[in-house]
């Protein structure tokens, strides 16, 4: 599968005119990269060459900065910029439109810092992932992970980072779930999710339904607590486990 | 070669052979039994040497002690020894077999001491076989006088090999 035509040529031609970079509203000025003549003049922000088919031109792209290439890169604003943060904007593409048509307001497709992501309702997410795999050819699940926001009502962000070999495109799918809420496993869709979900379970305590082997992967089986939760202190440990299994007072 | 301390080595080797034989049946652990059997076989090889039959001794070591017993051990090692050790070592007929063995032994002793024929042979016993040509003689006999039986025996072994393969592997 994964044909060569995508891999050998850098990004698909569709996104070349568009500078792609995040439309940072902040004052951090990107440095124009190519100021010497010899090499290929790469359009300003190569680092963010995430392909985004048919994205609308963003306002205030950095090409204005690239247009004034001094021999010395311009110093950024004298005062350290106040990070106001890039603002996510809606992500438009054929696929997104199709998905919107299918799920309506259940999903929200956004672009931030040149990267696309979809925030979906937790009830829709599994189906969405299945569709992404089977119909949209996102055949490679790069990563499954989670983020813990203890102050939120739905405490966990579950994140799937997907990549499509045929489209050479990355997308993140995010959903929110509450503590004690389970989520159906995607290890049936992408076998690679097997260990990744186990790690999420190990670190956050999120259980995946239907997972073939839902147990801890990095920490020992009898360990109590899930270390990547925000309420788990950095020097916290399962004292009891350490004392029983290692025969020492404390691991610290 | 002039023999040295013949009787000492004879008793030593036969003692070892007997000891090994007894250990084979009394040890509970099958690996120990197999090792005791190897001891017996080696002692027998020594006795063959003393009887000026070096070829038989060599074959005894090469085939029995070095080949067959290694295969024995190979199989035994894969057996669950823990279970074998818990099982009963002797079954109920041990009295019968003991009596039979004792009678046979007595019979041997009686023949050795009473039989005139054997006594005749025993008196002729110290016939010196020429060691130097022993192997050649064995070869001549096997491939001359006993050619047919030798070949039949090898055919039998071939059949046994094929049979073993067929029995061991369900699909070939």
């Amino acid at each position, binding site marked *: 599968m994964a044909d060569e035509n995508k891999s050998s040529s*850098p990004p698909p031609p569709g996104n070349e005119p568009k500078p792609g970079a995040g439309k940072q509203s902040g004052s951090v000025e990107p*440095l124009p990269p190519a100021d010497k003549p010899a090499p290929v003049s790469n359009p300003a922000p190569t680092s963010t060459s995430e392909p985004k088919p048919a994205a609308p031109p963003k306002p205030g792209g950095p090409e204005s900065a690239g247009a004034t290439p001094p021999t010395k890169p311009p*110093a950024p604003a004298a005062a350290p910029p106040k990070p106001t*943060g890039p603002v996510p904007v809606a992500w438009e593409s054929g696929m997104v439109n199709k998905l919107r048509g299918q799920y309506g307001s259940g999903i929200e497709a956004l672009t931030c810092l040149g990267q696309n992501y979809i925030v979906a309702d937790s009830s829709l997410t599994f189906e969405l992932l299945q569709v992404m795999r089977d119909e949209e050819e996102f055949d490679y699940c790069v990563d499954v992970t989670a983020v813990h926001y203890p102050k939120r009502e739905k405490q966990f962000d579950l994140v799937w*980072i997907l990549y499509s070999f045929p489209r050479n495109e990355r997308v993140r799918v995010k959903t929110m779930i509450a503590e004690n809420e389970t989520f159906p496993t995607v290890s049936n869709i992408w076998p*690679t999710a097997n260990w990744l979900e186990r790690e999420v379970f190990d670190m956050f305590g999120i259980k995946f339904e239907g997972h073939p082997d839902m147990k801890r992967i*990095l*920490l020992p089986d009898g360990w109590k607590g899930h270390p990547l939760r925000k309420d788990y202190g950095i020097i916290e440990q399962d004292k009891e486990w350490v004392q029983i299994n290692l025969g020492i007072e404390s691991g610290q | 070669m002039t023999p040295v301390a013949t009787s000492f080595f004879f008793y030593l080797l036969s003692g070892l052979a007997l000891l090994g034989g007894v250990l084979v049946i009394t040890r509970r652990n099958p690996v120990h039994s197999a090792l005791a059997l190897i001891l017996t076989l080696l002692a027998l090889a020594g006795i063959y040497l003393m009887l000026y039959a070096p070829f038989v001794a060599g074959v005894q070591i090469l085939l029995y002690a070095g080949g067959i017993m290694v295969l024995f051990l190979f199989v035994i090692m894969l057996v669950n020894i823990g279970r074998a050790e818990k099982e009963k070592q002797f079954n109920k007929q041990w009295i019968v077999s003991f009596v039979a063995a004792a009678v046979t032994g007595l019979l041997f002793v009686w023949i050795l001491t009473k039989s005139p024929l054997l006594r005749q042979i025993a008196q002729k016993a110290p016939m010196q076989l020429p060691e130097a040509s022993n192997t050649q003689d064995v070869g001549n006999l096997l491939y001359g006088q006993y050619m047919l039986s030798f070949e039949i025996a090898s055919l039998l072994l071939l059949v046994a090999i094929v049979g073993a393969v067929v029995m061991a592997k369900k699909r070939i």
Partner: protein
Amino acid sequence: MTADATKYLSHLELGERDETFLDSNELIINMGPQHPATHGVLRVILKLDGEKVLGTECVIGYLHRGVEKIAEHRTYTMFNPYVDRMDYVAAVSNGLGYCEAVEKLLNVQAPPRANYVRVILTELNRIASHQLWLGTHALDIGAMTPLFYTFRDREEILKIFEKYCGARLTTHAFRIGGCLYETYDGFERDVKKFVDFVTPKIDEYEELLTTNRIWVERTKGVGYISAKDCIALGVTGPVLRASGVKWDIRKAQPYANYSEFDFEIPTGQNGDTYDRYLVRLVEMRQSLRIISQAVERIPEGPIMAKVPKVIKPPVGEIYHSIEAPKGELGYFIVSDGSTQPYRIRVRPPSFVNLQALDLMVRGALVADVIAVIGTLDIVLGEVDR
């Protein structure tokens, strides 16, 4: 793996047992965590029928240090050295991935000269990593000598690292926004000399192994994995390429300034250990190509972009991945606008690649398990983090 997963895998071969009357017990063997061939503290539980592998289970985590947790309690700058300790044989690559990810979050770009230095060092590190892999892999298969050859040549790379940044292994060579150190006098000369030195050495490794009958027998057809399975299992890097997928992040989604260089992506067809070996050898040669291009063109200019002393990225999240020697190394960083990352997730190539072990060794022999662990090129520091 569940039965459903087979839909996405081309084969899920369950080791078939020979039917015999002599039914010996299945043997459960615990390989590791102390074992000469598990490359650290990997523990593999093998279910064997004689020498045949019926199934495996990897037990990992013996080197777990909670890097992701530590990251949440360090500033962005302070966390930088920690990433070197993950894949410690390719520390420079780890640092590149992390620095670029944070730079993306900050929307800063490293100056061109820094990019060139980064590319040179990263490619040197790729060669060093592959050399270490080749030596240990050959040692696992029983060929002792390549180990010493590769270590001899890897030493030259480490010398360059040491001259550049003072460290040989955990280099911490890059900083957010560029490189901290200007190249030392004679850096270009050293790198050129190294390229000239190591090019014939790679032929030397090949001479020892590529046509060696035993080596070919031990590696051809061993640890086969198809392209479909690779993608389904998320396996990346040389393993994926050896299965015939021409995919390399340096080409597919170029980072740093890789788009400026001319190089090939080697691929194999058979997806076996031998092809992976060949692919990695060609990769070393291609890396040398990149290095010699880069060192010719290295521009003058600043080596560090202007970044604030206190790095405080705006609220947001970023996923940035690079082609580490072992596969796709990704950083998913969530920033809450403070000086400390809210969450850093490392997507380690070794961890994901190791998952394919079970599939690759089912029905093979014990000796093949060793060969496959070697060919996956895992580093337990990265698997466990």
